[in-house]
C-alpha cells in the first residue's frame, strides 16, 4: 500500500507552513519521512540542503520534531529528559537554554518531577521542549494541540509564533482548521497521499472560500434572509434592495470563508 505518491513541495526558510488533510491522508507519514523515522522507497527529502538519508546527521540536527503521540520515558524527570535529549544531539552543558525553554513553556515548576506524574498537557509541553533542545532552525509540529486544554493551546501558539518571528521555519499539521488559518502563511492539503492544493492561505480562501460568502439577515419582525454574495462589495447593494422592500434590519451576520470550506471542497 502506498501512503504517499508524487508529493513534491518546498517549504521556504522562515515560513509558517501548514500541512492539512483528513485522517489517513499521509501527513504523519510525510513528516516521518522528513524526520527519518520511516524510509521512503522512492524519492528524496532535504532539510536545508541536507538529504535525510545520505546526510542524515546534518538533516536531523536542523530538524526538531514534536510527535503526535504523547510519548515519554517514565524513568526520568523533566530536566533529566531534556538533558538527555540535548546529549543525543551532542550538546553538553545546555542548562541555560533548557531553563529558558522550560520557562517559556511554563515547565519550570515541574523541572524535577518524574514524567509519569505529569498531566497530558504537561507531557505535551515537554515534547515541545524536547524538540527544541538543539535549537533547530526547522520545527515540525504534528498535531501539537490535539487533546490540549485551551489555556495551554494559547500559550503554545504564542511560543511557536515567537519562534517563527525569530526566524525558525515552522511546519504544522493540525485538525483545527482555524489554527492553520490563523498562523500558516502557506498551506498544502493532502488527500490519499497526494497534494490536492498548495497555495498561500489567502489565495486558498479567495479561490475556494470566496464564492460561498453569505450574509444572514434578521429583520425586526423576525423574518430571516440569507444573501448569497459574489464578494464583500456585493453586500451593500443587496442590503439596499432589502431595505427598499421595507425590511428593517435588526441583525446581520457574515459567514466569512474559512479553511473548513476549502478543506471540504477539496477533500470530499
Amino acid at each position, binding site marked *: 500500500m502506498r501512503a504517499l505518491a508524487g508529493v513534491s513541495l518546498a517549504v521556504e526558510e522562515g515560513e509558517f507552513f501548514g500541512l492539512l488533510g483528513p485522517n489517513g491522508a499521509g501527513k504523519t507519514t510525510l513528516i516521518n519521512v522528513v524526520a*527519518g523515522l520511516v524510509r521512503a522507497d522512492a524519492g528524496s527529502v532535504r532539510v536545508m540542503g541536507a538529504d535525510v538519508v545520505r546526510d542524515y*546527521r546534518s538533516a536531523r540536527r536542523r530538524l526538531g520534531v514534536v510527535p503526535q503521540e504523547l*510519548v515519554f520515558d517514565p*524513568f526520568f524527570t523533566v530536566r533529566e529528559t531534556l538533558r538527555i*535529549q540535548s*546529549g*543525543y544531539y551532542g*550538546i553538553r552543558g545546555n542548562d541555560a537554554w533548557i531553563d529558558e525553554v522550560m520557562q517559556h513553556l511554563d515547565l519550570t515548576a515541574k523541572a524535577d518531577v518524574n514524567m509519569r506524574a505529569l498531566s497530558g498537557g504537561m507531557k505535551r509541553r515537554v515534547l515541545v521542549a524536547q524538540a527544541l533542545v538543539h535549537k533547530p532552525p526547522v520545527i515540525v509540529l504534528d498535531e501539537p494541540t490535539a487533546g490540549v486544554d485551551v489555556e495551554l493551546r494559547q500559550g503554545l501558539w504564542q511560543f511557536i509564533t515567537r519562534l517563527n518571528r525569530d526566524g525558525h521555519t515552522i511546519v504544522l499539521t493540525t485538525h483545527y482548521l482555524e489554527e492553520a488559518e490563523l498562523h500558516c502563511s502557506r498551506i498544502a492539503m493532502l488527500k490519499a497521499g497526494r497534494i490536492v492544493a498548495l497555495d498561500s492561505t489567502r489565495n486558498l480562501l479567495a479561490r475556494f472560500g470566496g464564492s460561498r460568502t453569505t450574509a444572514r439577515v434578521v429583520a425586526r419582525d423576525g423574518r430571516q434572509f440569507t444573501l448569497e454574495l459574489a464578494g464583500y462589495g456585493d453586500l451593500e447593494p443587496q442590503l439596499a434592495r432589502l431595505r427598499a422592500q421595507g425590511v428593517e434590519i435588526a441583525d446581520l451576520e457574515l459567514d466569512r470563508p474559512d479553511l473548513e470550506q476549502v478543506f471540504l471542497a477539496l477533500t470530499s
Partner: protein
Amino acid sequence: MTTFWTLFAKETLRFWKVAMQTVAAPVLTSLLYLVIFGYAFTGRVQVYDGVSYASFLVPGLVMMSVLQNAFANSSSSLIQSKITGNIVFILLPPISYLEFFAAYVLGAVVRGLVVGAGVLAVTVWFVELHLAAPAWILAFALLGAALLGSLGLVAGIFAEKIDQLAAFQNFLILPLTFLSGVFYSIHSLPAFWQRLSHANPFFYLTDGFRYGFLGHSDFPPAASLAVVAASFFVVSLLTLKLLQSGYKLRN
C-alpha cells in the same frame, strides 16, 4: 562522543533507577540457588578434586546472572521504547547505528557485571572465594555480557510484543544458560549430551569463566575464549546489519 555517552548513560541510569528489580532481585535469586543446590549437593557431588560443590557452583551462578541480566537490559529497554513509542527520542537525533549498538551493548555489559559482582559479593559469605586466573574471569565476563547484550538487541528488534520477547528469553536464553554447565560438569553427562553441550556457546562462557576461579575446566580456556569471541563477532555483525538497515525500527 557526547551522543554515545549520553545514550550509554541513559541505558545505565534506566536500570540503576530501578535497581531493586534489576540488581537486587537477580542477586537474591542466585543466592537462593546457592543455598538450595549447595545444601542439597555438597558432599554428594564432587566435580573436581579438592573443590567443594558450592565452590564449583558459584562461578556458574555468577556467569548465569551476568548473561541473563545483560540480555534483559538491552532487550527490555528496546522493547519498552518500541511499545511505549518513546523510541522516537533516539530515532530523531543524529545517532549512528554504531553509536546505538555500542551504547546499548555497553549498558548491558554494565548491568551484567554489576549483577555478577553482586552475586559474587553475597556468595563470599557462604563459600570461600578462589581467584586462580582473574584475567580469564574478566575476559569471559566482558565477552559474555557483550554477546548477550547484542543478542538482546536482536531480540528487541524482532519482538513486537512483550510476550514475543518472553518467548525468546524462556525458550532460548534460559535453557541455554541452564544447560551450559552451571550446575554440573558436562563430563558427568552421557556422551550424547556431552556432544550436544559443546554446541551450546554458553557452555564455553561458563566453563572458561569457571577456569578463572578454580583453575579447572572441562575445555581448554583459550579455545573457549576463541569460540566466545567468534560468537560475539557473528552476533554483533548481525545486530549491526539490522540496525543499519533500520529493520523494524524505521519502517
